[in-house]
């Protein structure tokens, strides 16, 4: 590689949070006009490190050099002044403001010509952005575009993108990568934080690897390969092979017919959906984010009103309260985009979060903290949760560790149906495999599993069957051994619809627990939905 100018150099940077070392003696270089990937498992300190460049955090030790000079970044404003712009993983946008208002936010100078200037930036990089649209009306990818334009409008020479692809469709990812290449042509330097190896290989010139808060090495992308990168990232050789357990499935555990669910804004989320789950079988759900997956899960566990029938071992569960549904063994762990939004109380400790689910087993008015703490210790040991103690607030843990607790807690309740949505969202390889192993263990115990996933490769190898949703409609249910990624991809976009080709064939179990007459009766029975 020819000698280029160094724009950022980090020397011996260290940072810790309440006793948890997030970064330790990190050294890093960024050259002008290059795309640098920062690769690392979750909790390896990538975001923390970048937040020190963007002025959100202050390093405890070490020095930052920008364009060869020692830089003091005390606030986000200082960071802008050095020409650094960061697109955070959790977007920093004001929901009720328009795109335009968000972009000019904090600009000190004259903004009279801003509208035209922003329009020019959009044209130059090929963004389609309605500047008058409010953020809360936007899709995730539009929001991300606003974030990127915001940084560009401030004339940033150095862009930091924190896991920008986590919430995008493959097409949107391609678009983003094209934009990034265009920026590189403009001699801007880009840092992309990711843990997806294929993206590292596709977009970056160089890659720097962090592991457990420590700097491991930097490599030229063209001189390396995913296997090598994985080794550096996890520190030991890992078997990348995902296993599909082959066991005899049981009779249908959960059967769903004619499911209709509405979204919060009263638009249709799920439209006439039939499917069933068998014990010892994993049904994967593929679909672009926001195609009704969340609403479907909520309907099943009693958190949302619905039309249609849901039966559990042949018994209708319509109108059951969420507690009752949990009692009969249906568990859900939904990992939302922000990971902390559902399922765990961020300020409470691990023990307290476990108590939230188990307190009903306590006799008398007092909570039994002792056994909950033992349970917490058990989880920490079994799933390798990294935490100073069982009493650490959950929000101080890294994403992967939070997820392990969430999934571990759900499985601890010994369910016969597990509904899990994006359980590996934002997780590194090691933690992901741990979660897959847990699910496989459950499958071996004849638990029925509904797995809502993002990564098609994982769905294809891990699940027994895949149901494809497109705008709340069932596009068909296929055996993973009889299909391929292309077919699923076509179904996800609605270009192929198996249910239309063969109506009535999908999602109706031949060995249903109920006869068709009984289903008819269920349909007629209008159980008042619980609020």
């Amino acid at each position, binding site marked *: 590689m020819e000698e280029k100018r160094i724009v950022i150099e980090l020397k011996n940077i260290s940072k810790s949070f309440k006793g948890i070392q997030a970064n330790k003696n990190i050294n890093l270089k960024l050259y002008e006009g290059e795309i640098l990937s920062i690769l690392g498992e979750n909790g390896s300190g990538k975001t923390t490190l970048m937040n020190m460049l963007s002025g959100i955090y*202050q390093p405890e030790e070490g020095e930052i050099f920008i364009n060869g000079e020692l830089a003091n970044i005390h606030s*986000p404003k200082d960071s802008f002044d050095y020409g650094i712009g960061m697109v955070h993983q959790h977007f*920093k*946008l*004001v929901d009720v*403001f328009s795109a335009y208002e*968000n972009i*000019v*936010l*904090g600009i000190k100078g004259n903004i009279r010509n801003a509208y035209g200037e922003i329009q020019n930036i959009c044209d130059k990089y090929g963004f389609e952005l309605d500047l008058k649209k409010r953020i809360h009306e936007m899709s995730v990818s539009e929001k991300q575009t606003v974030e990127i334009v915001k940084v560009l409008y401030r004339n940033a020479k150095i862009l930091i993108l924190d896991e920008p692809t986590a919430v995008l469709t493959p097409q949107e990812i391609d678009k983003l990568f094209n934009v990034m290449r265009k920026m590189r042509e403009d001699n801007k330097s880009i840092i992309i934080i990711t843990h997806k190896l294929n993206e590292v290989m596709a977009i970056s010139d160089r890659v720097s690897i962090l592991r457990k808060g420590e700097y491991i090495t930097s490599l030229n992308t063209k001189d390396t390969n995913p296997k090598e990168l994985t080794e550096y990232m996890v520190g030991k050789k890992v078997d990348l092979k995902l296993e599909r357990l082959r066991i005899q499935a049981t009779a249908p555990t959960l059967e769903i017919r004619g499911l209709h669910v509405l979204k919060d804004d009263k638009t249709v989320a799920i439209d006439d959906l039939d499917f069933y789950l068998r014990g010892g079988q994993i049904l994967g759900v593929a679909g672009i984010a926001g195609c009704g997956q969340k609403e479907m899960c909520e309907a099943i566990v009693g958190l949302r009103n619905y039309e249609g029938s849901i039966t559990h071992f042949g018994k209708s569960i319509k109108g059951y309260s969420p507690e009752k549904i949990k009692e009969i063994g249906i568990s859900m762990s939904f990992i939302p985009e922000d990971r902390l939004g559902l399922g765990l109380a961020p300020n409470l400790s691990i023990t307290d979060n476990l108590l939230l689910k188990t307190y009903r087993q306590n006799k008398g008015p007092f909570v039994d903290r002792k056994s909950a703490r033992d349970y917490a210790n058990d989880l920490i040991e079994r799933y390798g949760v990294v935490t100073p103690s069982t009493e650490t607030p959950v929000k101080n843990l890294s994403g992967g560790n939070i997820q392990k607790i969430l999934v571990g807690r759900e499985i601890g309740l010994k369910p016969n149906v597990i509904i899990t949505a994006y359980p590996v969202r934002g997780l590194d390889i090691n933690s992901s495999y741990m979660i897959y192993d847990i699910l496989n263990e459950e499958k071996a115990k004849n638990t029925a599993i509904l797995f809502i996933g993002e990564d098609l490769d994982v769905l294809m190898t891990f699940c027994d069957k895949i149901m494809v949703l497109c705008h709340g409609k069932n596009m068909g249910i296929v055996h993973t051994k009889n299909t391929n990624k292309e077919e699923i991809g076509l179904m996800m976009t609605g270009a192929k619809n198996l249910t239309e080709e063969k109506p009535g064939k999908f999602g109706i179990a031949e060995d249903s627990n109920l006869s068709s007459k009984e289903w008819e009766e269920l349909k007629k029975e209008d159980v008042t939905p619980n609020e």
Partner: protein
Amino acid sequence: MFASFLTGAVAMGVVYLFGCIGETLIEKAGNLNLGIPGIMSLGALGGAIGVNLYFAIFGTGDIIGIFLMIIAIIMSGLFAALGGLLYAFLTVTLQANQNVTGLVLTTFGVGFMKFIGSSMDQSLLTRASRSIKTLFTFYEDLGVFGQLFFSYGFLVYLAFILAITLHFVLKKTKVGLFLRSVGESPQTADAQGINVTVYKYSAILIGSAIAGLGGLYYVMDRSGGTTFVEANIEAFGWLSVALVIFSMWKPTIGMVGSIIFGGLTILPNYLGISNVQLKLFAMLPYIFTVIVLIVTSILDAKTSKPPQGLGINYFREER
């Protein structure tokens, strides 16, 4: 009869309007200040001290209205802003819980005003009130029209000017945009290089000063300087906070709302009703506020919601 009711409603409503404008400004910066009743009491106390100060400086001869007004407004705003400073220091700098701090400030402000105020000479207030109460003298020749629009004291016009100014600043200016971003999402504002602390402090101090004028207005104008320590400013303060919700954080609606609240407050005087019914009437503004809350919640309109960051302290390195 109706004209006198309407002027009465406007005049009464201005007490709430000052409190509402001040609190709206503070809430737009993301701070829920339940200390408004206390701050209005401090404003009343400051105003009374200002009046005494005027007489101490200029003697008790003929009153020079403009000096009296300026000194009263400055002292009132200053006392109220000191209350605001205490609140801002506790909640913004020390990150104390906003609700608790506000309630403590209310208790303190009301008590402090009664304690200091009870030892003050009230006859001076009554005298000074005459020149604060009226601004124009020609209105009597204009009949009903004159009575409706020109019969008030300076502070009434000031309240409406402040409401319109706040509306304009929030909607049309860069400062307003930045301020709203601080209230909606301080993380975003901070990441954009906006100094969250400066914005919050400024909004709280200015908002408190404006709210304080409500206390001054009630004592020196509305009640004609006849009630001071015995005035129930605390109740007016709570109504002001209710008016912020009623107005859906919009100063323009606040102006109309203040007249409605004012009308509901004085309506019993025009109906000749018993004490029990009086208590029922006193509830009406709150019931109206509850109805507005219910309706806006049902409509689920994003633009009629409180700022998203309201009531939450901001700490940059929070994880």
